[in-house]
């Protein structure tokens, strides 16, 4: 909220924004131009580093295939993430609520997090088959950890005095949970969601690498086998854009759901539990 901008009108509101963002935009444009020229100036072959224009051309060649496979991957990501949410939040609540669950489940969770999820992929294919099941499961197990951890951290934020205060008012455990603990935890839980959804993308794509006949991971494999480097780059760009869009979608929901003071608190905490 720049107070100066409010008092002096629209012209000055734009100018500081331009001053802030112009150098950033310029830097990105320069990198792209340099990259575009690198191919012809330094004779870098297309199969090593395609120019941005060639990547765009590869993507434009068959947008139907790109969006079709993108849709498959997106569904896997969302399903994996949502299962992750549905499992992780109650698990986080259980860990915070019962010491026994904390002692038994928490070490297991940490140990499980140490297992490289990529290494699990072949096993999951054996269990859940070639179809979306194995991809959804891999997305789910990768997304779960940060959501559980952030839920636990968030639920532990409530000062003990606040709980005393609520109890001294005759509040039920459910009231204490709903009115205080869960709301106080919300920014942390959203931090977990933001990490979780990008990890779910990784999980789904790795799943598609191992065994699949559709999805963006499969497209990557196909492009790799055909030495179609521009297409490889194109799919990576497309995947990244999808990941970024999903991240900001979660952030948008957070902004819509949380009241102001909690939103600002969450911003500083996006990195927890990574």
């Amino acid at each position, binding site marked *: 909220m720049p107070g100066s901008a409010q008092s002096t009108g629209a012209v000055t509101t734009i100018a500081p924004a331009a001053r802030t963002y112009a150098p950033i935009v310029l830097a990105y444009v320069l990198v792209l131009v340099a990259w575009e020229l690198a191919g012809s100036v330094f004779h870098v072959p297309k199969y090593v580093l395609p120019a941005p224009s060639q990547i765009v051309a590869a993507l434009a060649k068959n947008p139907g295939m790109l969006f079709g496979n993108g849709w498959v991957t997106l569904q896997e990501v969302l399903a994996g993430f949502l299962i992750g949410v549905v499992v992780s939040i109650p698990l986080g609540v259980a860990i915070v609520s019962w010491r026994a669950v904390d002692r038994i489940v928490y070490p297991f969770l940490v140990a499980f997090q140490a297992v490289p999820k990529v290494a699990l992929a072949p096993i999951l294919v054996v269990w859940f088959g070639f179809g979306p099941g194995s991809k959804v499961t891999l997305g789910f197990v990768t997304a779960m950890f940060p959501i559980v951890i952030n839920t636990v951290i968030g639920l532990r934020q409530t000062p003990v*005095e606040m709980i*005393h205060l609520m*109890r001294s008012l005759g509040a039920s455990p459910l009231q204490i949970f709903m*009115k*205080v603990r869960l*709301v106080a935890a919300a920014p942390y839980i959203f931090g977990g969601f933001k990490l979780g959804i990008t990890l779910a993308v990784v999980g789904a794509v790795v799943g598609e690498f191992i065994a699949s006949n559709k999805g963006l991971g499969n497209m990557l494999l196909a492009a790799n086998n055909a030495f179609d480097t521009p297409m490889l780059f194109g799919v990576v760009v497309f995947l990244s854009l999808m990941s970024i869009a999903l991240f900001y979608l979660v952030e948008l929901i957070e902004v819509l759901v949380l009241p102001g003071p909690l939103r600002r608190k969450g911003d500083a905490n996006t990195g927890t539990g990574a």
Partner: protein
Amino acid sequence: MTTAPAAARGTSSVGLSHLSKSYVRNGRAARAVDDVSLDVSPGEFCSIVGPSGCGKSTLLMMIAGLYPPTSGSIHVDGAEVRGPLANVGMVFQRDVLLEWRTVLDNVLLPIEVKRLSKHAYREKALDLLELVSLRDFADCYPEQLSGGMRQRVAICRALIHDPPLLLMDEPFGALDALTREKINLDLIRLTALTRQTVVFVTHSIDEAVLMSDRIVVMTAGPGRVFQSLDVAFDGPRSIETRAEPRFVELVKEVRDAFHRMGVI
């Protein structure tokens, strides 16, 4: 002892009898509170002062029914306390306001928890905020307030549901001296209106003398009652009270008690 408007409606009596509390720390039982007997009359403002770690806070939590005593008993209005009292006002050193609620909604929290009509209590909440000069901040979030302002909101929250008993645990410990003085006077004004029974834990001797009808001096480790002093002034307490010879005398008396305990 005060001339409390004879057990006015909405004020509690508190009776502690041979109250003790031990914790197990590093495998050994440590006694935090030892054989404390104390009676607080309805409408009385009773301060508990003592060095750090004398079990003052533990005592307060036991009165609230939040910690069970190891031995002895607590009675509030003649009934033995066996679980959390559901109708007390509590203020802690930390204001523990809910950051996501406006000042007004923070004050109305007890009403909401008790499932009473927030609408009906809105005016009362605003009146309370008016009394501590915060009415204009009713729609602000706590993050926009200073420490002293936040603690005043916490006091309004403790008073909104007319609890017959106020339990305050070093409520002004984190505030600077000037703010503290201002809130002391605010609290005197508020409790003078309602005549609630107040049990007030502090380590400020000045504050205790300024506000109390009675001061209970406790020893440290384990916490025992060392001395109990009645505090009486002619006329209501005000900013001038501190300048009265009687005030200086009482402060010295409490100080002497600390001296005899070997604390200062």
